[in-house]
């Protein structure tokens, strides 16, 4: 599992900043056409999330009326309502726009948390070893032995539905994947000459860990981060669909749940439940593509 990431570590001990700089260049995989497509999809969705206020035509939760003061229920797509309205007269297009913001917020927050915890645990566990390593890895075993979605359901009910609780649930179950791989990477990096050199020059443990070793696991962290974004968005959608999602935010999962519960399926309101699903597919697919790009940087042997 331990991939040899660094090929020229000679100067790293002398110029630790250079090591960080070099790693940061690998943050975005731009050599693979699929990865570039994935990044472009992300850029579009991020722009939509940022400019949601400008792009939306209506308040997503407002119950709308037609010019003749009738409830604007179940309208087909048209110039006034780009994707039509829901059965209680809410604008679907505006919900989709604001749902992008909710989904990306949850996706990125969860990915950042998963990567932060996983990287920290991997670094500490791999570098310190001993009982610390033992305890952390047994915790990882337990977390990996818990069925994912059922646990998120129970936890969401336990903690009351909110966006941050969904992020929390995803974090405590997904950190072991990145934590384990980063740990094994640290195990191999810490045996290398430049770490030994740093020890000889009298660098402190913290310095060695965060200045000399950490840059070498950064690409791995980003690989797991790109996987976690998609997972988080899918999980949020599933949880919302089951009725345990955040009640304070409009997300794609909320839209699908609303459509399902309002008989949009039997009434054939495809304009209601197809767009959110397509958005989820696009974002998760973009995550897959970017992941592929990282894998090509990290494990060039896999290139096929």
């Amino acid at each position, binding site marked *: 599992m331990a991939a040899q990431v660094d090929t020229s570590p000679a100067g790293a001990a002398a110029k630790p900043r250079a090591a960080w700089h070099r790693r940061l260049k690998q943050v975005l995989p731009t050599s693979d056409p699929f990865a570039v497509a994935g990044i472009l999809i992300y850029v579009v969705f991020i722009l939509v999330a940022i400019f949601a206020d400008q792009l939306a035509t209506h308040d997503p939760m407002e119950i709308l009326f037609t010019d003749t003061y009738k409830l604007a229920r179940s309208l087909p797509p048209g110039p006034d309502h780009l994707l039509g309205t829901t059965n209680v007269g809410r604008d679907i297009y505006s919900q989709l726009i604001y749902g992008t913001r909710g989904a990306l917020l949850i996706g990125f927050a969860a990915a950042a948390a998963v990567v932060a915890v996983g990287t920290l645990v991997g670094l500490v566990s791999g570098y310190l070893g001993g009982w610390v390593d033992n305890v952390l890895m047994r915790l990882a075993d337990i977390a990996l032995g818990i069925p994912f*979605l059922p646990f998120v359901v129970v936890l969401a009910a336990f903690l009351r539905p909110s966006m941050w609780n969904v992020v929390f649930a995803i974090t405590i179950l997904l950190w072991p994947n990145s934590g384990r791989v980063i740990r094994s990477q640290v195990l191999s990096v810490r045996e290398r000459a430049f770490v030994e050199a740093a020890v000889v020059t009298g660098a402190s443990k913290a310095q060695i860990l965060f200045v000399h070793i950490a840059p070498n696991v950064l690409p791995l962290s980003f690989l797991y981060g790109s996987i976690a974004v998609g997972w988080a968005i899918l999980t949020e*959608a*599933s949880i919302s669909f089951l009725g345990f999602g955040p009640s304070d935010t409009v997300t794609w999962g909320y839209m699908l749940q609303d459509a399902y519960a309002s008989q949009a399926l039997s009434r054939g309101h495809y304009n209601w439940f197809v767009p959110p*699903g397509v958005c989820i*597919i696009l974002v998760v*697919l973009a995550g*897959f593509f970017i992941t592929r790009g990282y894998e090509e940087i990290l494990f060039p042997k896999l290139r096929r």
Partner: protein
Amino acid sequence: MEYIARRVLYTLFVLWAVASILFLMFRLMPGDPRAAFIDNTFTAEQQQLLLVQFGLDQPLYVQYGKYMVNLVQGDLGMSFIYKRPVVEMVMEVLPNSLVLTLTSLIIAYAFGMVAGAFLARMRGTWVEGVTIPVVLATRAAPEFWLGMVFLAIFSFSLGWFPAGGASSAGITYDSFWQQLVSPDYWRHLALPVITLTLYLQGLPLLLMRSNMLEVMEDEFVTMARMKGLSEWSIVMRHAARNALLPVATAFALGVGFSISGNVVIETVFSWPGIGRLLVTAVSSSDYPLAQGAFLFITVVFVVANLIADMLYAVLDPRVSHGSAG
């Protein structure tokens, strides 16, 4: 042998940890667990009686001890709402979940392996360029959304399949086997299975494809070529056999992951399985039932992982058992 013993011990450790976490979570749930169950019209004595009945009047460590003892004896308590033993209720729906999961997995893996081997042969052609993104998209789509689209098209619009449940109104079965051979049951099962299969086939397909590509470059394949064996013989008798190994492991893992992921599929299709039981129990604050359903899912999940580990060790003699932690 020592390796297997250690894996079993470790599985028991994980199960114990999960059971303990569950115990704590359900005792610490916000609001009183009794709130959902006890009616306002109950008198104080009646309430107290019920507390005693469920053992909720005792200190936490006594409750924990009893919980563990009961668990080991296979007693998961009574459902707050249905007032029936949890084990009985779980056992009633577990077969439905297993039928759904195993049928889908078997079809998905059979299809995935053949299609994966085929795609490996198509390497570098336009077929590959079109197929791979499509396969990835089926893995990126939320299962329940696929289910919703299929329901709208095939059930509500075309009327080919029933819209949910496991049997038509008025049909009852004397035994599980009678149900299993009933055409009505399979008509209800069809759409959930199609949805789940579509979602699951991507993994074995992509695995098989990359394994085949890797194996076909191995020395023993070159050797077989030099011996003048036919391409068919090389692919089927030499390469495919070796490429199957990770797919077999993935299948065992897949049983665990699907059972745990089934909560959404079963909810979309109102399929009376263990995942839907969990969701309804959690929504209605039926804690003993939710706890029991969750524990059963965990057991299936952890045991499937254990089997996958052992399968891997048995199938691949290169796996070192000595240093595995």
